[in-house]
């Protein structure tokens, strides 16, 4: 397999996952294999083929601007690890 053109630590950081050195090696190989597999597509001659935004040939799937019932506040917050004052409580956001 060719040298990977990605930085596994950078990718892991973007995904907010912590990897051990062993995992880094293993996932690096696997991700490289996947990319290599997908790279096969580059062998296709796509001259004259319009780039597509979606695999399904449909457009303009829209809904009318009508209000539908929401779920209850209780249901909305049911899975929140923490809640207070009907808000989802998260670690303090500091910029």
């Amino acid at each position, binding site marked *: 397999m060719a040298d990977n053109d990605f930085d596994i630590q950078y990718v892991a*950081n973007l995904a*907010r996952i912590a990897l051990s050195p062993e995992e880094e090696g293993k996932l690096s190989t696997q991700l490289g294999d996947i990319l290599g597999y997908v790279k096969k597509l580059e062998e296709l001659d796509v001259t004259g083929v319009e780039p597509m935004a*979606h695999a399904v040939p449909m457009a303009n799937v829209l809904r009318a*601007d009508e209000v*539908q019932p929401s779920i209850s506040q209780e249901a909305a917050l049911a899975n929140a690890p923490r809640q207070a004052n009907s808000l*989802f*409580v*998260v670690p303090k956001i500091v910029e």
Partner: protein
Amino acid sequence: MEYEAVIGLETHCQLKTNSKMFCGCANEFGAEPNTNVCPVCLGMPGVLPVPNERALQLTALTGYLLNCEVPGFAKFDRKNYFYPDVCKDYQITQYDFPSTTTGQVDFEFGGGIERVRITRAHLEEDVGKNNHFAQHSGVDFNRAGVPLLEIVSEPDLRSADMAYEYLNSLKDILIYGGVSDCDMEKGMVRCDVNISVRPKGGSELGVKVEIKNMNTFSGVRRAINYEVPRQIETLEAGGTLVQETRRWDDVAGITESMRTKEHAHDYRYFPEPDLMPLKPDEAWLAEVRSQIVELPLARKQRFAKDYGIPAQDADVFVGNVPLGGFFEQAIEGASNPKAIANWVINNLQARLTETGTTIGDLKFEPSAIRELVAIIDTGTISSTGGQEVFAELFENGGSPAAIVEDRGLAQVSDSGELDKWCQEAIDANPGPADDFRNGKENAINFLKGQVMKASRGKANPQVVGETLAKLLKG
């Protein structure tokens, strides 16, 4: 060296829809936290967004109002980042194929008309609202998924005041078009400001500083007025500027560097697989174009030019569209639009304000104001009589001619009766009469007042003056 500021704005405004962008939850401000939410806008796994057609129409309409192109192909993309107010860990937005591109806004500034080019106006979803507490933050997702239009300007602005006027003009256009209520108090408009400086007249751009999430126009103006001298002073002191995001501290009145993250933004945009592309066809676009309205600046220029009214009067009719519509009906076929404008602004608008009523509540037709001005202009009634007619019109409706008739307001210009009143005034006041004869011209005003009193205001003041002069000199 002399420097100039180079400023571009990214203006986000919430669209005026009933429901959210990709689900049927209400687009409503001020509800109890986390009550206008559902699995779609809470980013639950497995849900499917469906775009709101009205939001797409309003986006295209904005495109037309900002002289943009509205391409026949657009799509949605995912912008990936982690932040507590983005529950899906991505925001649906438009990246490389936005719904509108390349437009411009013309607006009044510094005594002339300025033009700012618009790069694009694209549609995205708003995010949740963070509430900050001592130890934690709390998120309300009622706002998440509200349709949000991001209007990106080219860096054509050169000063804080110019940016301020641009924002106000943009807001007026969006309100006019019914695109957004632009209620600043409700956070419906927010701005990111990009600022750099360069030697005056240069063509290269300097290092750019971004100030994010401004929610008042005056804040934008103050932030620019702080940031531009800061950058110039840094350069003049031999320092270098770094590309960074700065935060505006409204209380301290300064910008400060925000902690820069180890990795610069890498949003990994990719086409949103859950949404089909958009291909607005001609019939759909024609329907949108039928909703195009006259822009505020065009309206102002038209009123001033076509009706010959002063700019500040035109401004009133731009700011109050129904009043302007009433005025336009009132002046049909009239010879004196300026006098009609005065009545509409000084009397009608004032009474509407006092009584808390609107044009729709009026008991008379716009043509009544035209008639009223005509009978004042021809001297049939005095301007004081006009006030009385207007008061009656506003109270009970009717026609000015009928009110004049009913109340006996017609001025007396008949020479027989006027001659008699004038002679009586002269005879009863020999002092002022002699003063006038001895060259004290002002003395006639006293006599005139006596005649007006005798006629109980019905004498035509101009004719009274002429008659008195004739009798005194005779």
